[in-house]
């Protein structure tokens, strides 16, 4: 039976969003090919991952169960999915493009003499699969040219999840054969780095404050914003020179070089010493009262205004959005 198999992965935070997005991608592919959708995941058939279905439910769900799959290993997952795919013979296998999928799917695909089309952002007629090259500077369209199963992974956020439908699907258990000796690596439980040392370099979100803050008394304003965003607080050199924040929180040529996903520059004009320390940030937001401040040249989003009004409003807006 030829189908589109959409694979779900259990997330640490229990969220089903990326599964729902992958389902949406599967539906797009189903519309283009006329093939039915099926779903698969490692775990208990009663687990939430099979319940939070959005849109029309897949025709079947496969719960892969084995004690050796309790902790993720590439060896175990490759074996399990290899057996499932050999049994189901799907035409397409869709994964969410997560760190876990990146770890084992290329190996799984190679076992079938196939190559994963990874980090796909769109699916068009053909079907062709779009992905980005050169760090987003080029879009590329790929086509699968073999008879074997086509492995695809879907970029987080590229497809919008459908509305919850409350639908259910029949779930069957799949019990792969795995020997302990086949699992060659031993993972430990995930951990986070202790929060003792400030590591701005690996922070995902940073709120950075500059001379626009004027006095140390105003620092709680930005502290509140950082708190609301679950972000690290950092500063430009004059702030650290004044001792309003410790030196290790200084961003810039004589301080740390950072590259978070979100960088908020509050009251920072954007001298070169500062720019070289944060230019690699994915999304830069600047708040400054001077519309000509150089920071706006590098920012993705800007608010020209008094930070003493904008920052509290922003803190409220972030809280409201949660």
């Amino acid at each position, binding site marked *: 039976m030829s189908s589109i198999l959409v694979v779900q992965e259990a997330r640490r935070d229990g969220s089903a969003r990326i599964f729902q997005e992958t389902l949406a991608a599967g539906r797009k592919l189903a519309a283009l090919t006329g093939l039915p959708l099926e779903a698969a995941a490692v775990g208990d058939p009663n687990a939430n991952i099979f319940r939070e279905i959005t849109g029309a439910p897949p025709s079947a769900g496969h719960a892969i169960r084995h004690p050796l799959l309790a902790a993720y290993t590439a060896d175990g997952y490759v074996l399990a999915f290899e057996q499932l795919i050999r049994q189901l013979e799907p035409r397409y296998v869709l994964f969410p493009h997560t760190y876990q999928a990146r770890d084992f799917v290329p190996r799984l695909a190679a076992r079938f003499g196939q190559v994963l089309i990874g980090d796909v952002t769109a699916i068009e007629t053909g079907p062709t699969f779009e*992905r980005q090259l*050169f760090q*987003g500077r080029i879009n590329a369209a*790929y086509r699968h040219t073999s008879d074997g199963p086509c492995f695809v992974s879907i970029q987080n956020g590229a497809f919008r999840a459908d509305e919850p439908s409350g639908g259910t699907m029949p779930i069957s258990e799949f019990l792969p054969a795995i020997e302990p000796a086949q699992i060659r690596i031993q993972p430990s439980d995930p951990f986070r780095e202790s929060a003792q040392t400030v590591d701005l370099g690996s922070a995902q979100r940073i709120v950075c404050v500059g001379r626009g803050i004027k006095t140390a008394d105003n620092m709680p304003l930005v502290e509140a914003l950082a708190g609301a965003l679950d972000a690290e607080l950092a500063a430009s050199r004059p702030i650290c020179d004044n001792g309003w924040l410790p030196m290790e929180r200084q961003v810039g040529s004589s301080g740390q070089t950072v590259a978070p996903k979100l960088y908020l520059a509050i009251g920072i004009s954007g001298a070169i010493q500062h720019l070289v320390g944060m230019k690699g940030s994915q999304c830069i937001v600047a708040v400054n009262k001077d519309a000509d401040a150089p920071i706006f040249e590098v920012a*993705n989003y800007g608010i020209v205004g008094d930070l003493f009004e904008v920052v*509290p409003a922003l803190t409220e807006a972030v809280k409201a959005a949660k």
Partner: protein
Amino acid sequence: MKIVVAIKQVPDRDAPIRIASAGKWIEEADLQWAMNEPDAYALEEALQLKEKHGGEVVVVSAGPERVATTIREALAKGADRAIHIVADDLGSRDALGVARLLAAAIQPENPDLVLTGLQSEDMGLGQTGVILAELLRLPHSTLILHVEKTDAGLRVKRELEEGWFQSIEMPLPAVLTMQSGGNKLRYATLMGIKRAKTKELRAVNAAELGAGPAPVVVLEQITLPKKQKSTQILSGSPKEAATALVEKLKTEARVL
């Protein structure tokens, strides 16, 4: 410990990207080339392991003539010798095809450890190392920041999503794909460049490594993305601007 590092030469990040007339690939004539950064971190890790435990670091790279400059750079930074798989047609091979070339060159070396970057800065496939492990029938782990040799093999630190990490024990030989930033890269030195001149750089023709099956995935067309980055200034009252910003961060930039 004998370590093989697979490196790739990629267009310099700064290089202006233009699409060639056929729309299948970029214009390569005007490009500057550099070592893929995650591969540079893989090389750094290999050199540090060698400095700690002794052994040999062998660099393998596939590509046309120009790749030799990047190989020389690796030798200058401290690799002991290198294998250049001379291939002018890498673009027409898929990740499996390229990995097959690398595996054919690495296999006879019988390394204890194979390192490579987790992905390339040009194609961004992030698969070559993992496929290499499959072809060499070795265990692998990806997104590695730190490698420690133990009596039984290796203990590695793997990056997970959202600030989580994991420690993994694995036997040798193995394949690891390295994440950027786990180490500090060393700079190239004049002494290194001069010493590199006397190191072995063996060129192997891709054809000698055997022709693999046809590619299963083909790149049909490339285009420039429509949206260019520019600054969006959000206007209105502080409250309106703040609300609009949060909405954009959620839906457009997807960073919240």
